[in-house]
């Protein structure tokens, strides 16, 4: 007998696509999608149950369908269409509490997978370069998404203590990037002119959409419990990423960027969340050793490749300087390698992040698009 999996938060794109991928898995018998509003796209073989996880109906669904695995994906980063901050908090925190309460009652449940986020680590000037799973944020989050996630993780840990027979896997995923993903980060990167924080350059580490589905599926299929950081290899600086996406930037002080972000949110141009300002100022890197060693998962795309893939659907709004230089370069002889760059005995700066081919491909694709 295969698994019966309940996925929460299927009305949004990531949840819906994941539920569909999971339904195609031969090891999984049934996939039940739960959300307050019906999903807008195709959900394939997933059976959708319209239920609010904020009320106890969810317990009945779990009992009736004999669910043995629950994948909790309905933690939202911005209120978006749901309403204000209060609605968001209620959906996130109260929803998780109800879901966990229902799970605690269920006798059939064996496995709980929670999609968390690396936002719990916060972003500040006093951060270590790479967060491991044991590290705490330097300053406890006081509001917004980060606080919600911190509270949710607390409840999940409490659940794990009360039900030691249930395997609990918490996946702290880095910001998800993909051609179709709509998130605060992607809508920021899609702006025709990108405001950046003057004098700071954030370190970015992202996860590709497909890798997110893969890791969730991996967690459902494997019996590994624990908390894991999930992110693509390598780091890209924000300025570097924007150059690769061929976006012109405008630098302004931090408070001004926050204000512009608020304006954009009010105008519904971009989904800018307040904790994003810290992320865009200082950035964040996470250590993924445990993901490889214990979870046994290997992301297919590095951070640089994620950006290259993201660039394929993006119409470049800048890149004039580059075109001028390219024209100039054509008039000059070809140079094989750069003898000035490598230094004998110098440490090689992570070769994994260097993907000129992917960038070239991305540029080509962008030109066609």
């Amino acid at each position: 007998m295969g698994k019966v999996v309940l996925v929460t938060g299927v009305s949004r794109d990531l949840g819906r696509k994941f539920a569909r991928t999971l339904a195609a898995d031969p090891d999984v018998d049934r996939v039940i999608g739960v959300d307050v509003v019906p999903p807008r796209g195709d959900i394939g073989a997933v059976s959708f149950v319209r239920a609010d996880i904020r009320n106890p109906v969810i317990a009945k669904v779990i009992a009736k369908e004999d669910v043995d695995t629950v994948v909790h994906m309905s933690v939202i980063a911005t209120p978006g269409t749901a309403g204000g901050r209060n609605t968001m908090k209620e959906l996130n925190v109260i929803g998780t509490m109800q879901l966990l309460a229902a799970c605690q009652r269920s006798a059939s449940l064996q496995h709980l997978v929670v999609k968390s986020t690396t936002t719990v680590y916060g972003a500040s000037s006093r951060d270590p370069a790479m967060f491991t799973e044991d590290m705490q944020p330097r300053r406890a989050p006081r509001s917004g998404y980060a606080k919600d996630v911190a509270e949710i993780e607390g409840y999940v840990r409490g659940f794990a203590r009360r039900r030691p027979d249930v395997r609990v896997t918490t996946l702290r995923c880095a910001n998800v990037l993909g051609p179709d993903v709509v998130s605060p980060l992607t809508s920021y990167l899609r702006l025709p002119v990108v405001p950046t924080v003057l004098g700071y350059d954030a370190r970015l580490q992202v996860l590709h959409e497909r890798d997110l589905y893969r890791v969730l599926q991996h967690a459902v299929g494997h019996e590994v419990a624990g908390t894991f950081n999930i992110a693509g290899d390598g780091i890209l600086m924000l300025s570097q990423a924007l150059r690769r996406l061929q976006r012109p930037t405008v630098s302004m002080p931090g408070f001004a960027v926050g204000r512009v972000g608020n304006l954009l949110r009010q105008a519904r141009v971009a989904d800018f969340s307040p904790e994003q300002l810290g992320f865009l100022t200082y950035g964040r890197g996470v250590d993924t050793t445990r993901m490889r060693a214990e979870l046994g998962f290997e992301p297919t795309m590095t951070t640089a490749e994620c950006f290259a893939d993201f660039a394929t659907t993006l119409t470049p709004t800048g890149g004039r300087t580059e075109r001028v230089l390219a024209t100039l370069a054509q008039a000059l002889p070809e140079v094989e390698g750069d003898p000035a760059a490598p230094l004998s005995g110098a440490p090689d700066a992570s070769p994994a992040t260097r993907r000129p081919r992917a960038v070239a491909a991305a540029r080509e694709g962008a030109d066609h698009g």
Partner: protein
Amino acid sequence: MGDAEIIPIGTRGRPGRGTGKQPSSAARNLAGGKGPAARPATRRTPDTDEAQPTDVAVDRAEDTAVDRAETSGVQDAPAASSGAPTAGDTSAQQPDPARPAARTRERHARGGIPAADLMAAFQVAAREVFGEEWEVQLARFLAFLRRRVTGDYSVDEYGFDQEISQRFFMAALRPIADKWFRIEVRGVENIPSEGGALVVSNHSGTVPVDGLMTMVSIHDHAGRFLRPLGADLVFKMPIVSTMARKGGATLACNEDAERMLRGGELVGVWPEGFKGIGKPYSERYKLQRFGRGGFVSAAIRTGVPIVPLSVVGAEEIYPLVGNIPSLARLLGVPYIPITPTFPLLGPLGLVPLPSKWLLEFGEPIRTDEYDEGAADDPMHVFNVTDQVRETIQQTLYTLLMERESVFR
């Protein structure tokens, strides 16, 4: 004077050269073209009645017109110059018949200089700047520029950008190290050529120039990049934080230090911190407290050698004679320095004094022989910290004895 023939010089008070509204009479005469010739003909008919007065009147009109043009500006000139066309015509009627009319040609910005000449000049200039292989050199530089513009370079997980630090930071700091401070490096062989190691140095000089100089010296003499550990403040400040990350620095915390040392990097620490660089000139070359010995426990945990480094010369670059604690508190910085030159000479006071620097790397202190729990044994950690501190202090005294004077 009345019968004297008048040979007009200049524009006779009328707006001539430069107003741009119409060509001057001189220009019209020279050009002799068809276009402008039509206009004077139509203009002349009303003018002729007024222009009837004798030459004296013309002469007077000319004088007054010049005066007025000088005093009250150009506006009055047209009215005053009513008699001018006649005079202009008289002169125009007696040109040298042998001389052909000069014609102007349309000119472009680059007119007259053939493209081949330009190209040749460019090639000569390029050869001057880049040498014989200028095409290759230029192509290489262009490739570098393109890499920067397209973002096609790599940074490591701390944000270290090797290309820019080598091509820009090091290149900018090297002349300062070689020519201004005339740095003399000793004991380079004590820096392991590969694998993790921790360079521990004294800190001085009001502004952490010694860190930058150590970085460039190690890069040039040992062929490795020093990865400095910086204070919180460095990463809080805009621009400085970006430069620090690009240059290879990271936050001075145990997690990062151990991670870097495990990754086989050459890590630099200045355990005195702000106590060291912010100490008054009178306390020069007296080592301050070495923090809590966190760097020693990081080295013991990762089993890497500690290389003590003594820097002589950095104390004298900005002799700190005073401080403004209240302003410093207000701005959230550890101190506001007052040096003999600094607020007094303004920006000129920011130029460091050209003291002579000596850098001596001491014998590495091995930490891989200690047992497991040594890093958590405070007594042991303090002992090693003291050993490092004493070594640096003794070397400082020896180097000071050797130095002839501050500037030599």
